[in-house]
Structure formats: C-alpha cells, structure tokens
C-alpha cells in the first residue's frame, strides 16, 4: 500500500467533498454554483494528475525530449473546462430569473413561496 504516493488524490478528494458540501448545505443559489465549480475544478486536477508522468515534459513535440506527459487527459479536460463555463453561465442566468420571479435567491424562502401555491 503506497500511502505517500497517493496524497495528491486525497487532496483532490478533499476539494471534491468541499465543493459537494457547499452544494448540499448552503441555501444561497450563487454559492451553490460556486461549490459546483469547485467540484468541477477538483475533478480536472484529478484527471491531469492521472496523466502526469514523473520527469515528463509538456506534450509539445520538440527535439531532445523523449518523455512526454500523456496528452489524452489534457484534451478531455480542455473540452470539460469549456463545457463547464457554458453550464455555469446557464446556471447563473437561471439564478437571475429566479431572483426576478421570487424576489430571493435563498433556497428555503423559495420553497416557502412554492408551497403557498
């Protein structure tokens, strides 16, 4: 069991749980979206650390470099970052509309107004 070799994954798991906790426990919608972004970024860190090779250079072909880091996770994460910003933008637009419809962005106040229906 290689404990010390895994400490970076534990850091990633901590960040993931921090983001998850923000989404679950806080009622403010903007904070929830921030927590979601924290979660996403921690997953990106995990993927990039999967693709890392000790002593490897960036995956740009050059003379004199023999060991490159794995380019495949880089490509996936590039796409994921852009898709993440797209969903964040949509989520924030929804929050603005919710604020105009209900007058608040706190989750419990929204529930109260919904139950009055």
């Amino acid at each position: 069991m290689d404990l010390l070799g895994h400490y970076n994954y534990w850091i990633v798991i901590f960040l993931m749980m921090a983001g998850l906790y923000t989404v679950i426990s806080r009622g403010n919608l903007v904070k929830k979206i921030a927590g979601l972004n924290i979660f996403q970024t921690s997953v990106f860190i995990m993927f990039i650390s999967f693709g890392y090779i000790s002593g490897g250079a960036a995956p740009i072909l050059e003379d004199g470099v023999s060991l490159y880091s794995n380019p495949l996770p880089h490509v996936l994460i590039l796409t994921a970052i852009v898709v993440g910003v797209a969903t964040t933008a949509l989520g924030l637009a929804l929050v603005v509309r919710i604020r105009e419809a209900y007058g608040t962005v706190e989750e419990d106040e929204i529930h109260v107004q919904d139950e009055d229906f």
Partner: protein
Amino acid sequence: MQHHRILRVVTKFFLPLILLFGLYVQFHGDYGPGGGFQAGVIVAAAMILYTLVFGFGNATRVAPPAILRACSAAGVLIYLGTGVANMLLGADFLDYGSFVPDHRSHGEHYGILAVELGVGLTVASTLLLIFFAFAGRSETEDAD
C-alpha cells in the same frame, strides 16, 4: 472623474495588446499552447474589459448583438462546413487529409487551422453575447 480617466487611458493602451495576444494564441495553437478556445476567451475578455470601462452603450455600438449572434452561428457552420467539404471530396466526415491528397499532413494542417478558426469565433462571440445579456439586465449604467 480622475480615476475614471486613468482607467480609460490604461485600457486604451492595453486593449490592442490583449487582442493581438489573442490573435497570436489563435494561430500559434499548433506550435505552442493555445488554440481556438483560449484565443476566443481572451478576445471575449478584452471586449468585456472595454465594456466595463467605456460603458454598455459604447460596447454595443462596437459589437452589435445581432452581429455577435451571426458570428456565433458562423463559427459552428465553419466547423461543419470543413467536415462536409471533406465529404464532398469523397473522404470521411472531418478527414482533413483529403484536402491535399498527396501530402496528407498538409491537408490536416489546413483542416486544423480552419476548424480552430471556427471554434475561436464561436467561443468569443458567444461569451461576449452572454456577458451582454447579463449586463443588459442591470438597472445601473456600470455593469460592475
């Protein structure tokens, strides 16, 4: 009004540099880090900076939302068009090598350039459009 003036002068100085850097990143995505996405976001960020300093009215006069919508769609169409052009030349969809059948790597290079152009165009115009949608909703003049 004093600090607004400083912001305006500094922004006028930096904005062309940022746009130039974005253009550089777009076309040098083959040789160094970069490519369509990064370039698109940099250009959008430059325009957002312009909006923050010079006001929403000026910004929409420089980049009207109708043109931005057209650019956004045009970028996706450029991407699709490249793929369809490959199909028209008899190869598979998005098989860029068919552009120059003797030197497949040259064809791939052209294809990648065209595709990254489409991606950069769509990303820049869409992000700017999203920002304008948010800024257009606020009651105050400054989109801060």
